[in-house]
């Protein structure tokens, strides 16, 4: 039998999203994600190690080049990282935070991103999310965990009418179907 050890890593297969024809929605495939947990004292060193500001206020994102750190909780950051640089994250932190008082967990495959662009997107989100998307209440740059219908979601406002939505992978078809149905009420 052939030795299969050196087979090439297969391509990532994300949950399928049927083509809805709605150009406002784009699945964002791939990318690396980590959940970083640490206490107040470690914020500075960790930020230095990763080269990104982590001392942002709660529910705000910090972005450097194509890296993002979303502060979802006082001690929790969702790191969105280029897949090519993902392997370096753990060693960088381990080298700097030698007391191991932190947690870094790879969740690259746990969730999938959807990009939503369009003037009706706040209304569309409000079909299933009870947050206020007025710019004063949910400014550009805000990111938070919340719910979208019966799914947990992370929602990041990148622009007045651009939102980045992350949901756990098994909820993607559900969320995608709802977005497409609701989208029909708010024509492009």
């Amino acid at each position: 039998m052939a030795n299969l050890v050196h087979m090439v890593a297969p391509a990532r297969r994300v949950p399928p999203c049927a083509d809805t024809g709605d150009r406002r929605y784009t699945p964002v495939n791939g990318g690396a994600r980590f959940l970083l947990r640490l206490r107040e004292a470690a914020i500075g060193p960790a930020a230095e190690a990763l080269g990104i500001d982590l001392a942002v206020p709660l529910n705000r994102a910090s972005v450097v080049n194509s890296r993002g750190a979303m502060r979802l909780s006082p001690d929790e950051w969702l790191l969105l990282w280029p897949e090519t640089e993902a392997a370096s994250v753990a060693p960088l932190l381990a080298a700097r935070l030698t007391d191991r008082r932190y947690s870094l967990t790879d969740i690259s495959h746990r969730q999938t991103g959807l990009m939503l662009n369009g003037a009706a997107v706040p209304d569309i989100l409000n079909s299933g999310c009870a947050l206020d998307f007025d710019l004063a209440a949910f400014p550009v740059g805000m990111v938070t965990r919340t719910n979208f219908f019966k799914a947990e979601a992370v929602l990041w406002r990148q622009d007045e009418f651009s939102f980045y939505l992350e949901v756990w992978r098994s909820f993607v078809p559900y969320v995608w179907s709802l977005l497409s149905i609701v989208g029909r009420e708010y024509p492009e």
Partner: protein
Amino acid sequence: MLLIPCPYCGNRPEIEFAYGGEAHVVRAADPGQVDDAGWTEFLYCRNNPRGDHAERWRHAYGCGRFFNVKRNTYTDHIEASYRIGETRP
């Protein structure tokens, strides 16, 4: 749907939260020192007032933190919310 003031994230809709029961119910550091009656009380008996109630909520679909809320169980009016470890107002 209540509007619950998370001490970390601000006012958020109730559906983002999980109710956590009465606040300030302390689990003994050494349960072995508590007698049977006391442990049964700890397990099962809770304040159940009509009026002000200190209770825990977790911002489960938000920052994930547990915190305490002082809410009137008849009017639903929320007087205060405060972090775990802070004293009851």
